[in-house]
């Protein structure tokens, strides 16, 4: 447990009465990280070790589980599938969401309110409810067992939240900037490319991160659409691996912990943006 101690050791000037606070924070972090640590450490043990002492430390440390997983084809294939799905979903959501939010925020036309309400109402249509007919729809259009069969619906379901977050962002750009751009000979679309895109970057990044993580972790939709093993994304892969090697607990733990690495890396790179973006979203 290296990380939590940082909080204490670096407290060079212990503000009076802050010790209980640090103790609480320490307990909290322990509780939040213990299961994650269990998964990662467990992957370094052998099944014999796990059977004799389920809660023990690796003795000796054993990297074979991790090497096996990393050396196999299955893991990498699923990483690629997940990456393709998450990247395409994110690109699609950002492109469509930004264009539509731009129109909704800065054009005045009849039906604008209705269109915004339609998208906002989408928040009330969760994937869980739509999953059975969605499965039938995807089957009908011939996208079963293909990655677009997951990507397109995911874009659809991510659009409402995207628009709700981006429209206030785009509306907040002062009209004076647009007027100045127009005087300088910049048309509406030129304004979109040269001014709106750069200025809305913080909002776009927030949306992109949330979409990417949600897509990377999504389970229900791939579970219905992807039945062929070659198309599995990581969450499906973890589950398939866990049932296939149910007696090989150590290897399952290794596979599981490797599968959470990308999301964790991605998150730690952008965590500031996520927290900041949520602040904006809450204030609406």
């Amino acid at each position: 447990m290296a990380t939590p101690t940082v909080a204490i050791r670096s407290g060079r000037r212990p503000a009076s009465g802050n010790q209980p606070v640090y103790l609480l924070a320490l307990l909290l972090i322990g509780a939040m990280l213990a299961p994650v640590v269990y998964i990662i450490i467990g992957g370094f043990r052998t099944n014999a070790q796990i059977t004799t002492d389920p809660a023990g430390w690796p003795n000796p440390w054993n990297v074979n589980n991790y090497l096996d997983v990393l050396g196999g084809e299955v893991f990498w294939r699923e990483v690629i599938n997940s990456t393709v799905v998450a990247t395409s979903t994110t690109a699609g959501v950002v492109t469509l969401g930004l264009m539509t939010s731009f129109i909704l925020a800065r054009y005045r036309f009849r039906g604008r309110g209705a269109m915004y309400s339609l998208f906002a109402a989408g928040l009330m249509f969760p994937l869980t409810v739509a999953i059975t007919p969605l499965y039938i729809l995807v089957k009908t259009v011939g996208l079963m067992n293909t990655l677009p069969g997951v990507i397109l619906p995911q874009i659809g379901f991510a659009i409402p939240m995207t628009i709700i977050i981006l429209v206030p962002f785009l509306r907040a750009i002062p009209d004076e900037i647009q007027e100045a751009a127009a005087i300088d000979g910049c048309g509406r679309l030129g304004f979109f490319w040269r001014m709106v895109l750069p200025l809305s970057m913080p909002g776009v990044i927030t949306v992109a991160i949330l979409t990417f993580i949600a897509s990377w972790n999504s389970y229900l939709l791939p579970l219905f659409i992807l039945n062929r093993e070659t198309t599995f994304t990581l969450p499906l892969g973890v589950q398939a691996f866990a049932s296939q090697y149910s007696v090989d607990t150590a290897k399952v733990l290794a596979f599981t912990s490797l599968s959470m690495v990308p999301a964790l890396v991605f998150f730690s790179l952008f965590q500031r943006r996520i927290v900041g973006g949520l602040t904006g979203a809450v204030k609406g």
Partner: protein
Amino acid sequence: MSSSNHNNVGGGAVVAPPPALPRMRKGRKGIGWPARLEIALMTGPTLLVFVTFVILPVAVAAYYGFFSWQGYGPPTNFVGFRNYILIFQDTTFIDALKHNAIIVVLSLVIQGPAAILLALLLNRKMRGQTLIRVLVFVPYVISEVVVGTGWSLMLQGDGAFNALLERFGLGWLHNDWLSDPGMAIWTLMGILTWKYIGFAVILFLAGLQGIPDELTEAAAIDGASYWQIQRRVTLPLLGPTIRIWAFLSMIGALQLFDLVYIIWGQYVAATAGTSTMATYMVANGRIAGEYGYGNAVAVVLFLISLTAALLYQRFVLRRDTEGAITGAGI
């Protein structure tokens, strides 16, 4: 929003300033054909994807729900409301509904106060603040499948959790955390709290940052204690954030599927007392091959969520969301 620019008062900006683009003045509604084309091109694809994959399936579910249909060919066996009658006669569904209700209430009662306390704690100036905030958020970022797989391995009868209890002399707490019907729903609540409390904490922290320091400082100068300030000043100001979180939490709890399905599987959830409407829908719809029935369950789930959402908006959220969800000035 300040009204320094009169264009913003009526909500929404104007497309372009009249002098520079005189063509905007033409046309009855004040927009010209180029603008219309832009509107069509830039919203068309979004509308297409959204309507096809979000609105249409729900509408289709409502239609298929009136059929007895096994998923082959177009549905022909119209059965009226029979699916719906069967749903509410099935004690398994009623049980699932009860579990959902329990999960909604317990999520609010457990996660809400705990998250508020944690957010207040983490909002204090302290070293390592950023690191702590990030670590609290970690479980939220990990996928449900990883969480489910990890926890179910840990909580098995001969798993790490029971072993730890033994080691610390708490062997009397030893339990069948996953399979004991009296215990399983509490286990589920524990895992749900662990997984989702970080989201609540981050939301509340964001809300707390919006509260001006002057207010709490003024209260402190007036002699209010720390807890008095939190209770009388901070909490009321955090109200809108808490109410939005409660809304999201409620909807999430009603739709709960992933964790239950992964940990308890498609059949055991009912006997362990953790089944939800969504796991019932999947087990009795797609897996049983009764697509008409599954769609009817989806409609029931949707109507229950919608009713809950509308009631909540009507009675709780109204003062907060005026203009937020229902179109900020649109």
